[in-house]
């Protein structure tokens, strides 16, 4: 087993809004090893994108990283002095005095880590490319700045990279503007940019979600090829279980700011151990076989401002019992067999020993009630 490249320990990020504090990421821990593609899966509002941004301290106001530790290749990107973790001193994440002494400065992250060691690919390529500069020019400048090459050499490399990610007539397209590229081609350009500095880790935030399925197929295949060639690690953020099954080695499933299950991809699908993951898998129509009736997850995801007490999924969980309303389980290893399978569910009585078996089932949205999808918040007038 290879050493972890990235280690995330109990990371917490909050947003201070007029309505209250949103606990977008609430104590997640995971690792990414060399050459691995690790999935971070969840529905919208689960906190997966904020988690990705937090790794590079890219969270914007009013968001703040308030706790936990992130280390990458032995260097600390996020870390707090003892007892200072949640000090609300009002300074932003860029203020270096918030962090412990051994944490890299914002300047060091910008110069040494971002782009060079850890690259990010976002969902919407149009937002990441500047519409008033040519595609080739942007790629060249990026390479020039990050790899310290001459302009001429950077240009050659830029053309090579464009060709490598499958842009036809790369030499001619070099001087085109982003709007002259199709969505799939723009995403290829961003992949070229992400890989141009041969980073060790790429954080890919829903990079294929906006693309058509045949284009998505092309991009996933491209990523697999490039990953094999450069041995790059990926943190792949997505809501799509199909994409997860296709490219991920290991998966973290997020629900309301927490990781509820963590497993090798095969175990996640064939030895599913958290009711949320199970519900997620049951609710998707299948492209490969007919499904008579979809079994949706009852209700809607509660607000992260006031997450339910106890297990956060208990309001929608078909397996919920009284004890689930009191104890919020952490994500624990399920057996000692050495398999890296963790789940945060009290129904694994032998692991948690919280008295789940004797506890009474509870009435919740999954237990029927009126019908699916009713609001509880909102005001009658």
């Amino acid at each position, binding site marked *: 087993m290879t050493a972890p490249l990235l280690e995330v320990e109990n990371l917490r990020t909050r947003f201070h809004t007029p309505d209250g504090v949103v606990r977008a990421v609430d104590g997640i821990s995971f690792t990414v090893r060399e050459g691995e593609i690790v999935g971070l899966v969840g529905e919208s509002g689960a906190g997966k994108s904020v988690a990705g941004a937090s790794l590079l301290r890219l969270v914007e106001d009013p968001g703040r990283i308030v706790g936990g530790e992130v280390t990458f290749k032995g260097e600390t990107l996020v870390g707090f002095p003892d007892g200072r973790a949640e000090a609300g001193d009002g300074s932003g994440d860029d203020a270096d005095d918030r962090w412990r002494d051994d944490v890299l400065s914002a300047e060091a992250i910008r110069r040494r880590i971002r782009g060079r060691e850890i690259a990010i690919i976002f969902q919407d390529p149009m937002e990441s490319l500047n519409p008033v500069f040519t595609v080739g020019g942007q790629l060249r400048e990026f390479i020039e700045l990050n790899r310290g090459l001459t302009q001429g050499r950077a240009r050659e490399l830029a053309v090579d990279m464009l060709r490598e990610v499958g842009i*036809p007539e790369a030499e001619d397209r070099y001087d085109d503007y982003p709007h002259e590229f*199709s969505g799939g081609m723009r995403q290829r350009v961003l992949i070229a940019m992400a890989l141009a500095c041969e980073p060790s880790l790429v954080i890919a935030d829903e990079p294929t979600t906006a693309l058509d399925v045949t284009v998505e*197929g092309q991009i996933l295949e491209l990523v697999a090829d490039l990953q094999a060639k450069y041995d790059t690690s990926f943190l792949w953020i997505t809501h799509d279980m199909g994409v997860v*099954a296709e490219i991920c080695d290991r998966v973290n499933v997020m629900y309301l700011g927490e990781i509820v299950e963590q497993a090798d991809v095969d175990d996640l699908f064939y030895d599913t151990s958290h009711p949320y993951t199970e519900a997620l898998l049951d609710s998707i129509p299948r492209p490969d076989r007919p499904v008579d009736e979809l079994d949706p997850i009852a209700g809607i995801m509660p607000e992260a401002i006031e997450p339910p007490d106890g297990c956060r999924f208990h309001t929608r969980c078909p397996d919920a019992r009284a004890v689930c309303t009191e104890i919020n389980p952490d994500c624990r290893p399920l057996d000692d067999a050495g398999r890296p399978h963790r789940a945060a569910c009290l129904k694994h009585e032998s692991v948690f020993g919280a008295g789940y078996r004797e506890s009474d089932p509870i009435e919740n949205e999954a237990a029927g009630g009126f019908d699916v*999808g009713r609001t509880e918040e909102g005001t009658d007038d």
Partner: protein
Amino acid sequence: MTERPATASGDGGDAGDAGYPTSPDQGETLLALDGLTKHFRNDGGFLSGLTLGRDVDGLVGIDREWVRAVDDVSFEIASGETLGLVGESGCGKSTLARTILQLVQPTAGDVYYKGRNFAEMGREELRRQRRDMQMIFQDPQSSLNPRMKVGRIVEEPMEAHGMLDAEGREARARELLERVGLDPQHYNRYPHAFSGGQRQRINLARALSVNPDFVVCDEPVSALDVSIQAQVLNTMADLQAEFGLTYLFITHDLSVIRHISDRVAVMYLGEVVELAETEELFEHPRHPYTEALLNAIPVPDPRAPGVRGRLEGDVPSPIDPPSGCRFRTRCPELIVPGDYDLTPAEWANVRAFARSVDRHEFEAESELAVRREFFGNAEPDGEAGRIVDEAIARLLTGEWDGAAALLNESFADRSICARGRPDYEVEPERDVDRHFAACHLHRDGTPPD
């Protein structure tokens, strides 16, 4: 599933009052398209269509381009069925829906609804007919007026069509809210108090308020999270059974299509390329584009075989679509022109070579290097061989465009795929009536009647 009291579909008091045709029986043709076509003028701006120059008549020429969004589409939808319409962005599926509903004027072709041709209806009659056909859009946020309470939103179409009195409308709105899985108490709330899935339910209630027979659903669940998507899909299926609705369900998501449709039509670049009963289509696709689409979907099963036929290239522009079969420029099964005698391996090499030349994917260093790269295992001889030789010669002098043109004219353009528009019925594999596949591979089959 919640038990629902029986009313609404049967409460035909409001449907019958204005003398509308009654619902046709299940299975009868509700809607028929005959050669429906919609072209848009690609004006872009005030002066963009003008060309200055001597090569046009006079000094200023008018150069109008037409975007052929929908081209000669014919099919029928039976009462009570769900026809899935699937295709990638830009294939014309949303334009087709809008043209069917006469929200945009067709360029050519006819739409028959319950046997009557829209083109022959007057404005007032068309307006009344619209009540019977409703539409639901992708973005539940922007299709609801944020300043209107939910009750008003649901009642508005009834008001516009002069249905019921105020009291009756309110009662019906409350009932519909319950039917779509919302709380009737939500009548007085504003849309912002609802989640995306709930907003789509409000849209459903609004569409159903005027008691339509036909509902066009344009990507209704694409913006929703998977768990919410499943809830809404189930509700839509329940409502269909309860109200006897006919759906035209448009989406790019093949999994959703497989789940909800009775029959599926696949669109590519403005044309329907394949149409068959859902399982027939998914299990026995007969058009290479459908096959490519099906192979491209990531299957939520890590043990599924990871063979993924990659579809090369991008969709061509609908302004100047390829002749003959529009998919031929990307088709992995392009038919070898009858002029040449090529083995399958030779033909594959010729096509790979032509594509790489067209995309300028390599540098031509020497004749030998090019031959080794592209024709290592099989090199054509005879007439085809001479053309390849000539193309390589042009590459070595830097004439990439010339070489690409030569290869195109000599090979791809001479294929039957480039010459005639394919239009075939194939023998279904399953026990179903018909299977349409617009691919010349099936030219031994029969043309549709």
